[in-house]
């Protein structure tokens, strides 16, 4: 093909494969394009098969790196499994992609909407069915709310977005959301849509949904209640919320898992966000070590984060986190 044949760049040659988070797909496209352009002999394949599938394939040794919307889970034995996959060394895990999750809606004549976490929970739980419900009206004084039915839209597939969204609801909604945080939508009501794009496409007049902010496009987004203020989704807001979230200090060295604080009241923070990771081994064959290291370094680099921000609308990693991540990736070596 016309776009595959130029031979510029470094002398690196080879193919590596990754799989996992679909939320990271847009960012991955940008990263792969950037890295492949600089290293035309290299092909990085990425299969956005979902976070769970990515981790599983990584553990099976079918791919070289994984991307996941949630950190490796110790209880499910993922950490140990990853360790044995990496020849007994602990796997490396660094955040690569941070993005706000927007509550999107479409309602004729209403282009600004404030919602508290518990109201959102009740809407998605089917407890609030009309747009002019008192609970919504309280958050939106002076807004002329119609009496039409609300159609909540959720993901039909397993999704990191759903996991983070339900995590937020279960922690921030003051008990209005009784379900645990899960990749699978826990309810059988409302409209189901496949993938982030599916949710976006399903938002028609009267609908409300949640989606990675990068794909929201022209849809209207609700502001969520943080403390006493209402905050609209933004990369900065997510970055702020990330900054107040500590890293998980129970983890081994090289594992930068973050304990997201959903209930922060920090002004301007947007705690409904998704932190997604790349997972790799500390050592690889000669043929691959340089490529994996080079690619992942690019991912967490300033350039890489900027590329993701412009293509996927994500929040660049905060400087401190980025430095830590870069130094972890830098330890990747040939066996």
């Amino acid at each position, binding site marked *: 093909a016309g776009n595959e044949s130029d031979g510029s760049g470094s002398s690196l040659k080879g193919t590596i494969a990754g799989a996992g988070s679909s939320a990271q797909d847009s960012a991955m496209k940008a990263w792969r394009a950037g890295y492949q352009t600089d290293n035309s002999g290299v092909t990085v394949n990425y299969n956005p098969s979902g976070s769970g599938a990515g981790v599983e394939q990584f553990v099976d040794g079918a791919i070289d790196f994984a991307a996941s919307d949630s950190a490796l889970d110790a209880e499910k034995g993922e950490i140990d499994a990853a360790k044995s996959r990496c020849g007994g060394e602990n796997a490396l895990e660094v955040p690569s992609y941070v993005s706000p999750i927007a509550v999107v809606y479409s309602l004729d004549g209403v282009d600004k909407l404030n919602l508290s976490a518990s109201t959102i929970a009740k809407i998605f739980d089917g407890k609030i069915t009309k747009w002019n419900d008192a609970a919504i009206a309280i958050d939106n004084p002076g807004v002329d709310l119609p009496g039409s039915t609300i159609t909540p839209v959720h993901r039909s*597939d397993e999704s990191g977005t759903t996991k983070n969204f339900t995590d937020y609801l279960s922690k921030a909604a003051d008990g209005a959301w009784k379900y645990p945080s899960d990749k699978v939508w826990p309810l059988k009501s409302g409209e189901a849509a496949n993938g982030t794009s599916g949710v976006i496409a*399903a938002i028609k007049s009267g609908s409300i949904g949640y989606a990675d902010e990068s794909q929201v496009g022209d849809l209207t987004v609700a502001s969520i209640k943080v403390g006493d203020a209402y905050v609209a989704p933004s990369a900065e807001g997510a970055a702020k919320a990330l900054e107040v979230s500590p890293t998980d200090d129970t983890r081994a060295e090289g594992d930068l898992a973050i304990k997201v604080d959903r209930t922060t009241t920090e002004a301007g923070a947007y705690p409904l966000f998704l932190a997604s990771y790349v997972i790799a081994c500390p050592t690889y064959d000669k043929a691959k070590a340089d490529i994996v290291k080079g690619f992942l370094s690019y991912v967490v680099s300033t350039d890489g984060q900027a590329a993701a921000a412009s293509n996927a609308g994500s929040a660049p990693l905060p400087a401190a986190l980025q430095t830590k991540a870069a130094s972890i990736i830098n330890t990747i070596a040939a066996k």
Partner: protein
Amino acid sequence: MSTVTTGTGSPKRRLGDLVFANLTRAAGLTILIALAGVGIFLTVEGIPAFGAGPDDLKGHSNLLTYVAPLVFGTLLAAVIALLIAVPLALGVALSISHYAPRRIAAGVGYLVDLLAAVPSVVYGLWGIAVLGPKLVPVYKWLASHFDWIPFFAGPASNTGRTIFTASIVLALMVLPIVTAITREIFAQTPRLNEEAALALGATRWEMIRLAVLPYGRSGIVSAAMLGLGRALGETMAVAMVLSASGVVTWNLISATNPSTIAANIALTFADATGTARNALIASGLVLFLITFVVNFSARAIVSRYEPGSK
């Protein structure tokens, strides 16, 4: 000049014939083996799913409760599709065989074949982009006037991506095969019987009722069943058009819809892993068995009426 070689051990059956005959038989057997293979491999890869837990079954406690709603959705969509497609197909088949002038009939026949040539993914596009949105007002109207009928209980879908829309798309997709078979059968009605009816003073419709429909009855039944087989197994159009929650409901126009086995596989296969994939394969086995039984029965009916069989 050749002579008969008697006694000198010319083989009774020649090597070439032996090889070729066995080769062709092997090809025939390969097909049977492939068919059996479909069942066997699906079974082998489906068996681990019996041990699957809620994690791999979208929260269902066992395989049965996982597959049952999907079977419901599959049957519901297919049956509605047939209810739409069969009368239409009969009309189209009759228009080709008995109503349209010969030239037009040929053109219509070609158009119907064209309908069959459109790939299902394109039907999916059309269903999402054209049909669904066009039906939203219809569903809204139905939900506000006929909500006492369980099928139209509402609230109406916002996107039009309901089981009913999916069934309409399915109906279009099975229409060509049902039409093709019935039109073939109608065209084979003995001219003599048609003329007998007309000569008795029958109108065209009475002639069709007297001579054409009774003659084609079993053919219509099996055409419908073959259509059913198609509708049960059609994947992409449903996967794309339907907003599937996997519930069991008779409500045809709401945003919360049953899913079908095939659509569920297509939609969730990519992000399923391990036992979850086994569960999908097991549901595929169920689909295979259902369609096999339906097609088997349909073909059994057809073959009874084929010339040369008793």
